[in-house]
């Protein structure tokens, strides 16, 4: 039978031993062992409490309270250490999961749009944002739509089989996208604001800068009171959108059978931005970028539109050249060979 003092002593020892052992714990698993050793069914503290039967009724509450205090202290310490060990274990895990972030990423490939088609769409989008609808025309066209309706003179050299691919006397591979103008004007009455991009064909041997198949983009606006000032503004806006607001344009009088007046538009040399360098022969201007003009009254009339009431402008540009300039591609053949290593660059 243990007395009060003895029991107090025992409780004190238990507390000290428990705290001591706890301070040496390094593993979460060991924690449970300690808890069982001291606080479990057969634990030391529990045993002491069982021995409380030999105490007097005045001594029992004192020891009881002391025992509870000790229990609490040990439990709190266990929890505290549990928390600490958990954090340590977590940090340990994080540390061991460190990887070499400089190693290459997994190969998740997205496909690539063809640079030429991509540029064509970029151009179309610029014009769409200016209210131009997108229309398509056939690659195989009638001589009428490709030449006659466009006011091309009968003896124009471009009609020669040395320039144009013919299927029959009346059917050819379109040499420009301009026939779409005729189709659009015949199909809808003004106001018209359309753009059409697509394949065109000329009898040109394949070399670094020429291909028998190439791409053009055509634009047409027909309405009342359309002026050449409108044409200039539209072209300026387009060029600034494509090349940036520093780009300058120069409208030079030129000749096309289907526009009158006609003009060619140069843009500042892309290398020196207009200052003059070797690439532009010191002129400051790059080669002509596009052709344009006011729709010839004969063309309007051919489509059933009265030139006294309506006027319009049209423009056309070569998409392949713009793509080549934009991406620094020096050989047009690359555009049609479709080497994956080439396509993957865009």
């Amino acid at each position, binding site marked *: 039978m243990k007395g009060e003092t003895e029991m107090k002593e025992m409780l004190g020892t238990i507390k000290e031993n428990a705290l001591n052992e706890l301070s040496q714990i390094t593993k979460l698993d060991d924690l449970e062992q300690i808890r069982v050793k001291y606080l479990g069914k057969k634990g030391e503290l529990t045993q002491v409490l069982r021995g409380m039967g030999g105490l007097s009724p005045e001594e029992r509450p004192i020891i009881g309270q002391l025992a509870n205090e000790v229990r609490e202290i040990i439990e709190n310490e266990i929890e505290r250490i549990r928390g600490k060990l958990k954090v340590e274990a977590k940090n340990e895990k994080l540390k061991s999961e460190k990887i070499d972030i400089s190693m290459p990423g997994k190969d998740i490939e997205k496909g690539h749009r063809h640079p030429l088609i991509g540029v064509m769409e970029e151009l179309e989008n610029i014009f769409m944002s200016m209210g131009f609808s997108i229309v398509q025309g056939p690659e195989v066209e009638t001589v009428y739509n490709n030449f006659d309706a466009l006011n091309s003179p009968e003896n124009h050299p471009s009609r020669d089989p040395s320039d144009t691919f013919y299927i029959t006397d009346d059917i050819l591979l379109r040499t420009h996208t301009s026939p779409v103008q005729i189709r659009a004007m015949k199909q809808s009455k003004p106001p018209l604001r359309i753009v059409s991009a697509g394949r065109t064909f000329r009898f040109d041997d394949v070399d670094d800068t020429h291909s028998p198949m190439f791409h053009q983009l055509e634009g047409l606006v027909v309405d009342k009171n359309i002026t050449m000032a409108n044409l200039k503004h539209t072209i300026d806006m387009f060029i600034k959108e494509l090349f940036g607001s520093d780009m300058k344009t120069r409208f030079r009088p*030129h000749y096309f059978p289907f526009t*009158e007046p006609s003009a060619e538009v140069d843009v500042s040399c892309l290398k020196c931005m207009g200052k003059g360098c070797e690439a532009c022969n010191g002129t400051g201007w790059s080669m002509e970028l596009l052709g344009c003009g006011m729709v010839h009254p004969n063309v309007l009339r051919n489509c059933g539109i009265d030139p006294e009431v309506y006027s319009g402008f049209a423009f056309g540009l070569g998409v392949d050249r713009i793509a080549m300039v934009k991406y620094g591609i020096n050989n047009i053949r690359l555009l049609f060979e479709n080497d994956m290593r080439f396509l993957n660059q865009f």
Partner: protein
Amino acid sequence: MLVPVKWLKEYVDIDIDTKELADKLTMSGSHVDSIESVDKGVENVVVGKILEINQHPDADRLVVTKIDVGTEVIQIVTGANNIKVGDYIPVALVGAKLPGGIKIKKGKLRGVDSNGMLCSASELGISDNVVPKENKDGIFILDKEYPLGQDIKEVLGLYGEVIDFEITPNRPDCLSIIGMARETAATLGKTMRYPVIKINNQVDNINQYVKEVKVEAKDLCNRYYTKVVKDIKIGQSPMWMQRRLMEAGVRPINNIVDITNYVMLEIGQPIHAFDLDKVSGKKIIVRRALDGEKIKTLDGVERTLDSSMLVIADDSRPIAVAGVMGGEDSEVTKDTKTILIESANFNGRSVRLTSRKIGLRTEASSKYEKDLDPNLSDIACNRVCQLIEEINAGTVVDGYIDIYDGKSEEKILKLSPEKANRLLGTNIEADEMVRMLNALELKAKLEDNIITVLVPSFRRDLTLEADLIEEVARIYGLDKITPQPLVGTLIKAEKSVIRQIEDKAKNILTGIGLNEITTYSFISPKQYDKLNIPEDSLKRICVEIRNPLGEDFSVMRTTLIGNMLEVLTRNYKYGVEKAWAYEIGNVFIPRELPIKELPYEKRTLSIGMYGNSDFFTLKGIVETLLERLGIKGHEYIREENDPTFHPGRTANIILGNHVLGVIGEIHPDILENYGMKERVYIAELNFELLVLFSNLERKYTPLPKYPSVTRDIAIVVDEEIMAKDIEKIIRENGKNIVESIKLFDVYKGGQIEKGKKSVAYSITYRSHERTLTDEDVSKVHDKIVEKLKENLNAVLRS
């Protein structure tokens, strides 16, 4: 066209430098391609006279000369063998500079002092193709005596610039120095100085020399003007004329030929001179050739003519192909004594067709092709005579023969200034417009707010009011037009449905990892052979190009498969490990043969791949595409009879009555034809059908409320049993609670009996009404197993 600025200055005052002139002319419509300096870097080269020529003591091929350059006599050793004592030649003194950075130093040649260099034309920077033949390889012998020691640059006019203009085809009037001078005068606001044409001494009468000139083909020749010059003295033309020709890109030959070329360049009217003594019967007949008639042109080539071609003939045979080239027999030689000058106006189309038929294009024919101003004929002819007289090369015979209907109608056009301003978006005063038109020699007058213009005969390109508006615009300056934004009703920019779906399809395919390719619309018919397409297949019925660039580009494609294979094969040969690609483009189906109307252009999609892929990769991609486009209800039906594809690994995609396309592995025979050593998978789809059946509408379906149960099932069946048959039975017996079926394993060999395969599925069961119990699921699952056993002889694998 080459225009020497010095020559231009004879007809118009130019007080700005050449670069500024070039800019101004470019901006008024004559685009400058390039400007070249005539002086290519010559310094300190002077006129010298050869006093002595002695054989070099130690070198057979060299001579030692003594040259008088005025201030001194110098010794020069040279290898030239075209020189003689008394010749005046260009001498590069010690310290002289020549084009190409060459510096002349004192030196010794084979032990003999040489203090300078005698120069050839090319050493002075004159291009080989314009150097007179007798001067070509040797020292440039000057045409006469010049002050000794004079700077050779003055003597030969080696200064100034030559502008190369790009003249548009509607402006033949600009294809002459006078024409460009006119443009220059209008652009700079100066006055034009036309050459004064005056012949001082004319003798006899032309009728004593020419019996008859007759034009039989009046439709092909609307003016024929001739004069005669006698006592011809053939020799070199004066240096000033030679130099002008050279700068304009023409090689001097002899004084008579040079004068005809000179006047052609100056005025734009081609001139031909016949040796009159060689004209049989002294008759000129302008007629169509007879079929098979022959002529040897003056380039020495014999040509056979036909009755569509216009010739100049004497009483016995053709002596010139009209407008193209003269005959050798009647050409002007050093023995010619009397010449007949032809200055004519031929039908441009006829000259062009003839020139093309005989395969001969000349400076003259290129000018005639554009239909000349008939008023130039008499002017040019008289100019030729004037120049012959001036250089003392002959005596002009009085009189002329002119066969001409006189029908050069001067056109009257009207221009409304208000209309011009309206079209251009400008505010130009009517008086200003009149002034600009007059500067171009278009006689303009303002009356009652309308400008009347009398269009001169050299501007055949001006036929409508719009043409006059262009004249005003370009002289005013396009750069002066202030840009104005478009105003008007807001129109919604539209894209067609087919285009929208195309864009969507491209996004899907690119996102999956395919590269977009673009290939030629025309192919070689050999492609059909390489693809083993049967001779009687519809695919071989294609649109043929009459004048193709070569067999490789001779027919319009009826399938995209060939081009796709070519692209994949080429990539493979370059060592590219993996190539996944697609193309959306047109194939061309003739509506009937022979072709009478435009073919049907069918929008088609091709997908091709090799590397890191198999049939199911391709199928997965096609499935994803169709699913994203909202296409449902299609089936894959095996295709064993398409020789392009592997008979066991190909399927057609069928939706109702339509074939959406084909998908499969390419037949090994085809791979061999292309030299391809890896398996290739290709699908070709009718994109128009895809658009037709697409449905981009999306409606939300509620998410499942109740949990699912997944059960696996592994069965052994005969090899030929297709997955779709198994899945059909599963679904049919699924009692609506089969949510999804996933095939996760197919296995042959090992423990599996030969001729059979093991197939494992994961079946997910779910009800939308309640949570399924194990019993519910088992009931259905067991039924499924039973049916599989019953219908497919399936044996359950444990």
